[in-house]
């Protein structure tokens, strides 16, 4: 199954893969610091377990970025 993660093609060989599993496979260190977009739709945290990736899906991990002052 070929999907896109942050704009780059990624091959997954054992579907089905949930958002939770994709976070692990993609080595996202702090999932709490990431907002997940699946085909442009924001996926709520409670739904990571039950939301599955399909062929050609586009997933974006968008990082919370603070900083600026101090």
């Amino acid at each position, binding site marked *: 199954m070929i999907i896109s993660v942050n704009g780059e093609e990624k091959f997954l060989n054992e579907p089905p893969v949930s958002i939770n599993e994709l976070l692990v496979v993609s080595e996202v260190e702090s999932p709490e610091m990431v*907002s997940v977009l699946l085909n442009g*739709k924001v996926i*709520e945290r409670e739904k990571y377990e039950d939301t599955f990736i399909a062929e050609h899906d586009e997933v974006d991990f*968008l990082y919370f*970025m*603070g*900083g*600026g*002052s*101090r």
Partner: protein
Amino acid sequence: MRDFSLEQLERYSRHILLQDVGVEGQEKLLDAKVLVVGAGGLGCPVALYLAAAGVGTIGIVDNDTVEISNLQRQIAHFTKDIDVPKVESAKEKMLAINPELEIRTYQLMLVADNIRDIIRDYDFVIDGTDNFPTKFLVNDACVMEKIPFSHGGILRFDGQTMTVVPGESSCYRCTFRSPPPPDAVPTCSQAGVLGAIAGMLGTIQATEALKFITGAGSLLTDTLLSFDAKTMNFRKVQLKKQDNCPLCGQSPTITELVDAEQAVCSL
């Protein structure tokens, strides 16, 4: 139309030459009011460029005083300014660049009780804050008051920004929902930030403010622009208004401002 003095025509000549700005655009800039929240890594370059550009009224909010560890990136503050309130230090440099501006300083913490009254008077707000509760507060207050703003964040070698035009484009909460748990936010001593990144991101935010005021080009609305300075890869992610956004969605659950607990990552 405003009468430009000879000195103003010279000072702003490189703007006036631009087809998308011109005398009309410069007049809009001189009449504009922009609020810069945070006089730190992002707020400093934003404030200096807005002052240089001739944004007529610039407000600047920050409750801190200058520390030596700020000087690596907070470009409006000099070694002589250590222990001086950041808003005063920034104001001095802004007026040194452009003495004809009105600079309003707010040496305070923005909280639920004061933010709406402060931002209401401005055409555009720059979020250059250092913590997530204030970032969300700025977003919520700007959406409620329908004031466009630029979100900005930096960390290590990375930066991100988006522009929000309430009522037209998606808000910060559409994509980022709620502040991350404080214990997940990297502490500053762990994280660090390359100083020049603040300039890269801050000048993008200043550019967005100038584009909004003059109407030049198209804004970073519904777009998260992020970069990784290690590779110098820039990426735009298309965002959209989310029906289930707790603030600007179809059945909002956030209808008034509340103060969240402060989890300050002192970047």
